[in-house]
């Protein structure tokens, strides 16, 4: 009987026909002898925030990198419901992946060094994303970089400073501005507030909430911090040792966790 709730999200009877924006099926990823992901599937609907929680080594960041097409799995399918993205996206070559990523997917890494050129100006970091997508008019580049930076609540008087001169919270805002500059269909967030102090963390999360509300950006948020997930996510996927052990609406995961591991996780937090 308890199997009923666990099988819900993918094959449950549907009332309103909504097409998932992201669908991953049967993803397996091995690194040598280590199986990082075992037959993982994930679905994300337009406008929602999917939270992925799990301890270190659970496979959550590996999954996010696959969503960003930085890596390929040993098995599995990946579809995005966006223009010019037909079939299994893992079949695309490097150039096609790069173009798809530039136009439709934004990512914010925990480590700003992965996402930013630290010695270029902050506005230049954002403009670079627009250049890849084909924008060449200088005034337009500048205006759109400004727009993205102010949407990320970055102080515009600092927009020409290089990220290396900025605080961690400000660097995350530059990453965020770069990620949203092209109004991506999908925004991927890999531990975006880990390592920031609590007040800065609250500001970054609030900015993300605001973006989601005002621009209806679909987000996938990876974090080991249950508080962050609870504040942000509509639905939550719990991962452990490369498997999805449980998924559900955020209030279900926090108020009525089913799996032994999720219960231990939630009880440890509360």
């Amino acid at each position, binding site marked *: *009987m*308890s199997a*009923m*709730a666990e099988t*819900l*999200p*993918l094959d*449950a*009877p*549907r*009332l*309103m026909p*909504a097409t998932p924006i992201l669908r991953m099926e049967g993803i397996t990823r091995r690194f040598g002898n280590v199986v990082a992901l075992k037959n993982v599937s994930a679905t994300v*609907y337009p406008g*929602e925030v999917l939270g992925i929680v799990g301890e270190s080594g659970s496979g959550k960041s590996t999954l996010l990198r696959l969503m960003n097409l930085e890596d390929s799995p040993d098995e599995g399918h990946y579809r995005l419901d966006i223009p010019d993205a037909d079939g299994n996206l893992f079949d695309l070559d490097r150039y096609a992946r790069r173009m798809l990523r530039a136009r439709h997917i934004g990512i914010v890494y925990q480590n700003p060094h992965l996402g930013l050129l630290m010695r270029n100006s902050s506005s230049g970091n954002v403009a670079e994303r627009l250049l890849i997508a084909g924008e060449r008019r200088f005034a337009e580049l500048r205006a759109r970089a400004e727009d993205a930076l102010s949407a990320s609540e970055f102080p515009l008087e600092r927009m020409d400073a290089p990220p290396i001169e900025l605080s961690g919270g400000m660097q995350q805002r530059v990453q965020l501005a770069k990620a949203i500059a092209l109004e991506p269909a999908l925004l991927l967030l890999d531990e975006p507030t880990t390592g920031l102090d609590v007040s800065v963390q*609250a*500001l970054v*999360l*609030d900015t993300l*909430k605001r973006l989601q*509300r005002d621009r209806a950006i679909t987000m996938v948020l990876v974090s080991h911090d249950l508080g962050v997930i609870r*504040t942000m996510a*509509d*639905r939550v996927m719990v991962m452990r040792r490369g498997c999805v052990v449980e*998924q*559900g*609406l955020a*209030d*279900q995961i926090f*108020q*009525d966790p*089913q799996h*032994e591991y999720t*219960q*231990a996780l939630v*009880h440890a937090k509360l």
Partner: protein
Amino acid sequence: MPNCENAMIDDNALLARSEPATSGARAVLEVENLTKHFDMHHLGKRLLAFEGMSFRVFPGQFLLLRGQNGAGKSTLLRTLYRSYRPKGGHIWLNTDEGRIDLARAADVDIALLRRREIGFVTQFLNPRPRVAAEDIVAEPLRLAGRSKEEALAEARRWLEEFGVKPELWAAYPSTFSGGEQQKVNLARALILPQRLLMLDEPTASLDVGARQALVRRLAALKEAGVAMIGVFHHRADIADLVDSELDLTTKEPCDVAE
């Protein structure tokens, strides 16, 4: 008109015995054989909350849940809202789009239904950092597609109705007192009439004025056909609204004294 038949408990064949107060009206909610238990893995135990519960609720009907502490009143509400996952049975909701079993519906549909059809009022507000009271209240209208100005005007009207002082409207509720937070919570939860409204002790920390405003609003929603299921500590407040009662201690429906 009170009618205990609307809230019927029967472990076997359901729905057959009960006739709606307004004959011909279709039930908003049909609960059949609903079962909920909790598996507590760290204790190796299963805790039964209720099983085989069945009842119906019709448009404009107010069903009061009764029972001692721990009888499962809040558990039932949360299970109907799908914060708790049902373990058996059906929760049929009749919507304009069709009939859907909330016990089995996909999470994404539940999320959508919570925006459009099913409201839930608790005694707790979960204030988000740096969001003004009036924006919190206006949000359901914004999500329903109203313009910002229109939604804010309506939000302020309800904040005033529930007795929140105008100087607090643009402030962040995380620093408000429990009672003021609850007023913001109520204004938000009740601003947009929904098909089914669940109320979990909404009067718990309210002053008399706000309680009266709440009862006025509930009466208007009832008049507009909103079906309600509620747990109330101060039962006298809503005595005039209650059509039927469900006692979770005895699992028996009972008449409401007029």
